[in-house]
């Protein structure tokens, strides 16, 4: 049976908490049944969204919290990372792979998020906080395909 549920974690905006959220992501992804590659990829995307929330969204202000919600069901796992920042449009972030941006020391986080999960959305660009939602679907297992045919 596929586990389903919701787990919410709230942390102060400290760089040291990035590893904690990453570790929780690994545990939840394993619980959901992702394989090692998928766990690694999801963890990297969650890590990048968390770094973004702590550094850019909340400006490393420990009084501002980052809330991370893991929601999982038959379809897959959604991770929502919420901060107190203004939000951003993931499609308007400069492409860090263009020659003029290659030497920039930052700006690669969104690229990594998009590369390692199936969907990236940013909600709430209204000045009341932003939420980055990452979704990774389950791969179809042969048993399910058989049932559907």
């Amino acid at each position, binding site marked *: 049976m596929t586990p389903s549920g919701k787990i919410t974690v709230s942390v102060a905006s400290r760089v*040291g908490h*990035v*590893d904690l959220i990453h570790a929780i992501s690994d545990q939840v992804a394993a619980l959901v049944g992702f394989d090692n590659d998928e766990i690694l990829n999801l963890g990297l995307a969650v*890590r*990048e969204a968390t770094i973004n929330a702590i550094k850019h969204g909340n400006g490393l202000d420990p009084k501002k919290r980052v809330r991370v919600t893991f929601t999982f069901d038959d379809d897959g796992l959604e991770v929502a990372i919420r901060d107190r920042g203004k939000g951003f449009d993931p499609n308007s972030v400069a492409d860090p792979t263009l020659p003029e941006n*290659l*030497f920039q020391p930052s700006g690669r986080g969104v690229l*990594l998020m998009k*590369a390692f999960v199936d969907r990236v959305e940013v909600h709430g660009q209204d000045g009341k906080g932003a939420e980055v939602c990452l979704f990774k679907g389950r791969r179809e297992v042969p048993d399910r395909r058989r049932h559907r045919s």
Partner: protein
Amino acid sequence: MLSKRRSEGPVEILELSGKITIGEGEAELRRDVQDLLDGGRRKILLSLERVGFMDSAGLGELVACYKRANENGGTIKILKPSGKVADLLSLTKITEIFEIFEDEGEAIASF
């Protein structure tokens, strides 16, 4: 992140291991490379064979180290990135900045 230094003639080899990520990892990489530059070393080979993981902060620090070395008349090259780290270097096109080698002898001879 852990690092071990050794010299092969004029080339300083920095063997890194573990994770290069936001916080300690990126700071240690910055410090290690700066120490070499401050010590007058200008030919630096970063061995990433035992680095299992990097995030955007680590990748950014790698690029920043390259720029700092370049500004000081030096060069940094990369040896044996593996697994996920090789994927990340390729995805971000950091492979277009650095010369990357699979063989240490070839890397040393290229300086």
